[in-house]
């Protein structure tokens, strides 16, 4: 067991480029590698893997394993699981981080099961504890509780992180590192899945919540679907997006593409403006302390005020339009 070494980060790609989450993960990987006194290795599986290796090193990797092949042009469960499995068996990493995107959440558990090892999903922080065991911390029960998991006996110790939870290290163009190129590493039977087509989402199908800097959140206190228009106006005034609680979505007041929180989109804006939400906010937002929360509610005892940075006790149907008006005035002036 002590033969395994190094911290690996799976660097997800899309259309021949890195997805941001992989580069964000390098920062956590860097910190783990430093604490363990080991190397940070970026894993790139893509037809352009060799070309991308340099970028991985810029963002903190000491070494890159570049797996090339046209077959990897698009994510496929079996192809990628098989490739990763071969690599892990060959190089025996101690720790493996994967971004919790659709791809990561599809790949991670399949791979961890094939490797008969443990995976902790959707981590918000990671650390090294006693005996060089990684401590993976994540929310559970809808964010009501935080749990720290360990994987003491099997290797690699695996974990996934959501996008927008970690911050990339600044790019260091002067960094150098080794690149190992691998080819033809898929073993076993080929994938049975045919990917037929990709349909891009129109603007109406998706809210750019995951990238939004400011999110105006609406809940049950909005009383009805028509009142989300007030939030749309405020969001437009600040160049932000409208998000909604599960209650508002379940009531049919707004499309599920706007749902944030545990079963909706994971977001990481700088500022939240929560309107008509009275209850516990941890259902909706992560516990990262870097966010600023403004809550508007007419009940001074509403639990949300305990979690907010700024609380306006008032009628949102007055306050929100007033805020929109003032912000528009500032932008024009």
């Amino acid at each position, binding site marked *: 067991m002590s033969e395994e070494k190094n911290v690996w980060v799976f660097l997800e790609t899309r259309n021949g480029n890195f997805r941001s989450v992989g580069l964000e993960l390098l920062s956590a990987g860097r910190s783990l590698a430093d604490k363990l006194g080991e190397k940070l290795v970026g894993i790139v599986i893509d037809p352009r893997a060799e070309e991308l290796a340099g970028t991985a090193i810029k963002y903190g990797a000491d070494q890159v394993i570049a797996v090339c092949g046209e077959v990897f042009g698009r994510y496929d469960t079996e192809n990628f699981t098989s490739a990763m499995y071969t690599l892990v068996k060959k190089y025996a990493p101690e720790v493996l981080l994967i971004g919790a995107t659709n791809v990561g959440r599809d790949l991670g558990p399949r791979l961890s099961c094939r490797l008969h090892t443990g995976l902790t999903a959707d981590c918000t922080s990671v650390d090294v504890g006693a005996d060089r065991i990684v401590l993976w911390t994540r929310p559970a029960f809808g964010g009501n509780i935080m749990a720290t998991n360990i994987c003491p006996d099997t290797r690699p110790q695996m974990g996934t992180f959501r996008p927008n939870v970690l911050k990339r290290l600044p790019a260091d163009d002067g960094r150098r590192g080794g690149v190992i190129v691998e080819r033809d590493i898929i073993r076993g039977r080929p994938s049975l899945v045919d990917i037929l087509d990709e349909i891009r989402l129109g603007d109406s199908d998706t809210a750019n919540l995951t990238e939004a800097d400011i999110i105006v959140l609406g809940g049950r206190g909005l009383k009805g679907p028509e009142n989300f228009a007030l939030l749309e106006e405020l969001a437009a005034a600040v160049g932000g997006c409208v998000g909604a609680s599960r209650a508002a979505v379940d009531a049919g007041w707004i499309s599920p593409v706007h749902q944030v929180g545990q079963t909706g989109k994971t977001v990481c804006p700088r500022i939240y403006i929560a309107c008509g939400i009275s209850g516990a906010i941890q259902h909706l937002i992560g516990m990262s302390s870097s966010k600023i929360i403004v809550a508007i509610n007419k009940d001074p005892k509403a639990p949300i005020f305990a979690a907010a940075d700024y609380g306006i006790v008032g009628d949102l149907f007055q306050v929100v339009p*007033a805020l929109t008006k003032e912000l528009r005035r500032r932008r024009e002036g």
Partner: protein
Amino acid sequence: MNIIVCIKQVPDTTEIRMDPVTNTLVRSGVPSVINPFDRHALEAAVSLRDKYGGTVTAVTMGPPQAAEALRESYALGADRMALINDVRFSGSDTYATSYILAESIKLIGRFDLIICGKQAIDGDTAQVGPALAEQLGIPQLTYVRKIELSGGRIRVERELDDCYEAAEAPLPVLLTVVKSINDPRLPNVVRKLRANRMEPDIISGGDIADLDPNRIGLAGSPTKVFRTFAPVRARNTVMIDGSQADAAVKRLLSEFDGKKIAI
């Protein structure tokens, strides 16, 4: 066609609270529900069965009270109920759970399709579905929002971060579904009353030949919970009187200006 739906009975996490003194979850008085994503999985299975014929078996691994979730599944259209219950299974993480589920499903019989919800709202890991597919050696298609069947092959539309992907595979496969796949029906009262008089089939450790004791329960779980704690969010909230909206807005923005928060 034979469809298996994996369901989980979970506490309604919108109702659950932390006890600030003991730092544990207050579970009493919190209603148990079928994991919301599993309702969508069940609806998808039942709709396929209504269209193509066959049997839908709702399967859950849990304590005896999980039978209630199976009865609800019956009320929602499932034909058969199977409860996987054994004291030796408790403490299983997602890996051990997927092993136990796989062995149990092999006992239940030949299947064409397994449908799971995207994730359970208590664990929030979304790991059991793919791990189960791996244990059974069948393909997985995750984040499914649309299903079509034809000639022993399944065609799905998957909801990815930034696009929809159309994919196809031969049966048997395992699917995990997202909410936008359907609007689950309400339970049928007649079926529920009938289910109240039925017991699910029970699968326990003794029913599974060659059950590997090293792959079940706490001993069989590669991940272990090290500790749990309440999410900390200490705040010194600045409270603003909002009875005069314009004044409140001015106050908020001047606070922001003071702290150089751009808005």
